[in-house]
């Protein structure tokens, strides 16, 4: 019974961790704006946390470069399974305008399996919330599969 309770609460009240890879801050501030009164994702039970071991969903903004890929991988590995990854913004998807720069590896999916892609430069907070809601659906499916 306790197991069922934890399972349903993880999907109904997901905790989110945000990591800025090599973003220009545009996507970061829009992600943060989702938490503030106008958009208020806390009404969905979503809480932003700083500790990867508490988190269910990882939001990644920006391009992956040679230095932060280790940090990103490390954060992902520390999160308990099942987990979902949302890549935010043109840079997180493919590298965006920076794709040809020498220190840029490309999108987040070069390092991690990505569940949801949110396009835009930067995406509007509404789009980010949409992406997180979609990630929760995938998260629930992963839980089902894990039993």
């Amino acid at each position, binding site marked *: 019974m306790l197991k069922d309770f934890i399972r349903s609460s993880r999907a109904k009240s997901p905790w989110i961790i945000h990591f800025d890879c*090599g973003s220009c801050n545009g996507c*970061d*501030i*829009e992600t943060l704006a989702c938490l*503030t009164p*106008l958009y208020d994702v806390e009404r969905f039970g979503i809480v932003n946390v700083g500790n990867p071991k508490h988190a269910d969903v990882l939001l990644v903004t920006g391009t992956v470069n040679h230095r932060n890929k280790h940090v990103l991988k490390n954060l992902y590995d520390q999160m308990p399974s099942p987990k979902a990854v949302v890549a935010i913004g043109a840079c997180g998807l493919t590298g965006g*305008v920076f794709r*040809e720069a020498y220190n840029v590896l490309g999108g987040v999916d070069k390092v991690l399996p990505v569940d949801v892609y949110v396009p835009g430069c*930067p995406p509007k907070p509404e789009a980010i919330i949409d992406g997180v809601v979609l990630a929760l659906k995938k998260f629930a499916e992963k839980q089902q599969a894990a039993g």
Partner: protein
Amino acid sequence: MARTIIPFGPQHPVLPEPLHLKLVLEDEIVQEALPAVGYVHRGLEKLTEIRDFNQMVQIVERVCGICSMIHAQCYCQGLEEMLGITAPPRARYLRTIWSELHRMHSHLLWLGLFADGMGFESQFMQCWKIRERIMDVNEATTGNRVIVSVNVVGGVRRDLNDGQLRWIGSILDQVEAELKALKKPLIDDYTVKKRTVGKGVLTAEQVYELGAAGPTLRASGVAQDMRMTRYAAFDELVFTPVVETEGDCHARLKVRYRELLASIDIVRAAMRALPEGELAVAVKDKPAGEIVTRVEQPRGELLYYLKASGKKNLDRVRIRTPTFANIPPLLAMLPGVELADVPVVVLSIDPCISCTER
């Protein structure tokens, strides 16, 4: 007690961006701080080799999403000087209006993050609620909330009509009233003062020698603001820099708060004096020569060094951002600070890491 080294970052709850500091501590007191950067380095200055000088406007806008408009303004202003053209008066006024709106949303964002860094979450929400009004203005007048992309080499791409100007005026009235209401619970508050007064103090001589820029410099009593160099519409508008003298975190808070109110007045004055006319002049030549140009970003002095030799690609774009200049002062602020105050002191320079590393 023996010395301990505590890593601060790169992923840290109070920092939206990855900055890594190695803090050498003796008991709870920081003795020394060493920065490790490079988590956001993309190398976009090099992109000038594959993008032409017009396309570079879109690249430099993405140096930093918080002050993107001001980066593009500085870059265009430099190229215009190199090409020997001047943006039309209306374009210079519009640039001033949008850049001051950008400064306001950046400072409100910082006020919120700073409050959150102290654990004052309700003020974080309050500041960001006010900020959404400015974001609405950005979206309604330019089509994007963050990367407004209004600058082109030679002028601006968008205009403001009378209806929009009136509407912006009414938004500014609301923002001003809400900001004034914020003074008591944020600036004059007992707990906020306890957390900020006397923390991370630097004297005027120290900040100047360490090359600080922007509010970090002005909070220690040095009256330097690049808007005093009279770029854009500042040659016709009245401008006085905001200066505080204590040089601690509270002074830096006050400088930014007063600059917010000053920006409202600048936008109002620019809207009143907005001249009629063209939005942009045509660019016929290819740029050649060397130019150094500066503007005031929310975080301080921004410098662009541009070098070209008559080709469609520039030879070198060098960007010196204010946070880059404010890291040495930060390293000087941290020794003697308690570990629990480190987030407040780090946030007090308004660090923008994506600017710093480009």
